[in-house]
């Protein structure tokens, strides 16, 4: 990795995945998707970012159901979901795995199939997380992409299989991935953040998300 944090690289990838999006909503505990969305917004001010759990100036005035009502009408085109487990059929599990209990499905069962571009995002890239088959299907759908801390996959809707697009560092990803996927002959490296993107992330983007993700802003950018 270069002179940037892994979180910054991931935010840059997310900003690229958002190209063409008009309105992204971001759920609980998602500082990297939030950073990516605010980075993308720097170049497209008309792009709307709705942080579901924003503490001040929350975008919803009809309570937390408004997010789902907007999605049900197609007024949100991009959403982010993670999972304790994600499998090769793009199903996600936020409930229980390996005897451990996780928080629960949140709105995923609805948002994943209803929102056009769902970006699956999980920092941990391991066989524990990326499994052949999830133990519990919180939600299933056709994702726009799967981004982990080590790689970016696209989703092949016709084959219902992931395809490796790039890795963030040279290395063997297959041995760390529990599901099978297609892979090009030569695997590209994920482009590093540009100096311009890093300046935006460390300036206006950090400022935009620090109030809602104080621990993250402190850890990555030293903002108190």
């Amino acid at each position, binding site marked *: 990795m270069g002179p940037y944090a892994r979180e910054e690289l991931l935010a840059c990838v997310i900003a690229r995945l958002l190209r063409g999006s008009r309105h992204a909503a971001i759920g609980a505990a998602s500082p990297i998707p939030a950073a990516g969305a605010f980075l993308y917004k720097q170049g497209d001010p008309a792009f709307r970012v709705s942080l579901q759990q924003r503490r001040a100036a929350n975008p919803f005035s009809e*309570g*937390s159901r408004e997010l789902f009502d907007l999605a049900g009408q197609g007024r949100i085109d991009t959403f982010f979901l993670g999972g304790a487990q994600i499998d090769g059929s793009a199903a996600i599990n936020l409930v229980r795995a390996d005897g451990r209990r996780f928080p*629960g*499905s949140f709105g995923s069962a*609805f948002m994943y199939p209803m929102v056009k571009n769902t970006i699956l995002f999980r920092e941990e890239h391991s066989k524990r997380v990326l499994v052949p088959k999830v133990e519990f*299907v919180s939600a299933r759908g056709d994702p726009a992409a799967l981004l982990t801390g080590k790689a970016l996959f696209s989703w092949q809707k016709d084959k219902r299989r992931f395809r490796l697009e790039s890795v963030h560092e040279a290395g063997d990803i297959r041995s760390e991935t529990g599901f099978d996927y297609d892979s090009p002959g030569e695997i590209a490296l994920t482009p590093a953040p540009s100096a311009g993107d890093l300046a935006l992330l460390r300036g206006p983007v950090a400022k935009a998300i620090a109030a809602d993700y104080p621990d993250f802003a402190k850890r990555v950018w030293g903002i108190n």
Partner: protein
Amino acid sequence: MRFSTVEELAASIEDGMLVAMPPDYSMPAMEIVRCLIRKKIKRLRLLGVPILGMCADLLIGAGCVDEIESSAVSLGEAGLAPRFSEAAEKNLVKIKDATCPAIHSALQAAEKGVPYMPVAGIAGSDLMKERKEWKAQGDLVLVPAIRPDVALFHARWADEAGNVWVGRRRELATAAHAARTSLVTFEEKKPGDMLEDELLAPGVISSVYIGGVAPAPRGAWPLGVPGLYGVDDLHLSRYAKAAKTREGFQAYLDEWVLTPGKSYSPA
């Protein structure tokens, strides 16, 4: 309307009741939660509107809960809810896993007085295998109405007419409309009737739905009241760490819950 005390409101919540409570970002009535633990309430059934956080973790850890229906239980940026996780892993509470729009819709059915509401999208989830009462009909799922015994939450203001003001936190209004009654703590008293004020009225829940109100300054602490005080993130992360073990949780209870009044002091 006569204002009650926090203790009186807590006393009117009985063992075994179905209590609807909001997420950490939507003003849970934490002072009443602490009071319920002190009075050793039992067999509560909690409903997350649509998720739950610290209030549920405290009540579960203190042994007050038999059953929980929620779309998630989490401490947000502070991490997993440790007492909930352990209770789930050891099968100490019955968990009815849900998903946010199903709970919103179930409460909306109750507030309209109809038996169920259709919800799109969720038919492909394994939640359907566990929630036998959710009926698939084509691409839709019919979710039965949920009528909580009590909706319990905190509000910025209460007025002399018994109305409460929650601003944009309208899931509290949905819960209040759906529940048999609502018990509400508040930060500050407003003179008169807020429904006579055009600017305040849209954020009001009418006294029609309210069974009791009690003053509790900083009553949402360590969570926040938007525009008044923020979430005490430091306290939350200390709690998340302490509650990882039974002993740590008990020490937290001893210090912050079982000592009345301590919780009002700023961290």
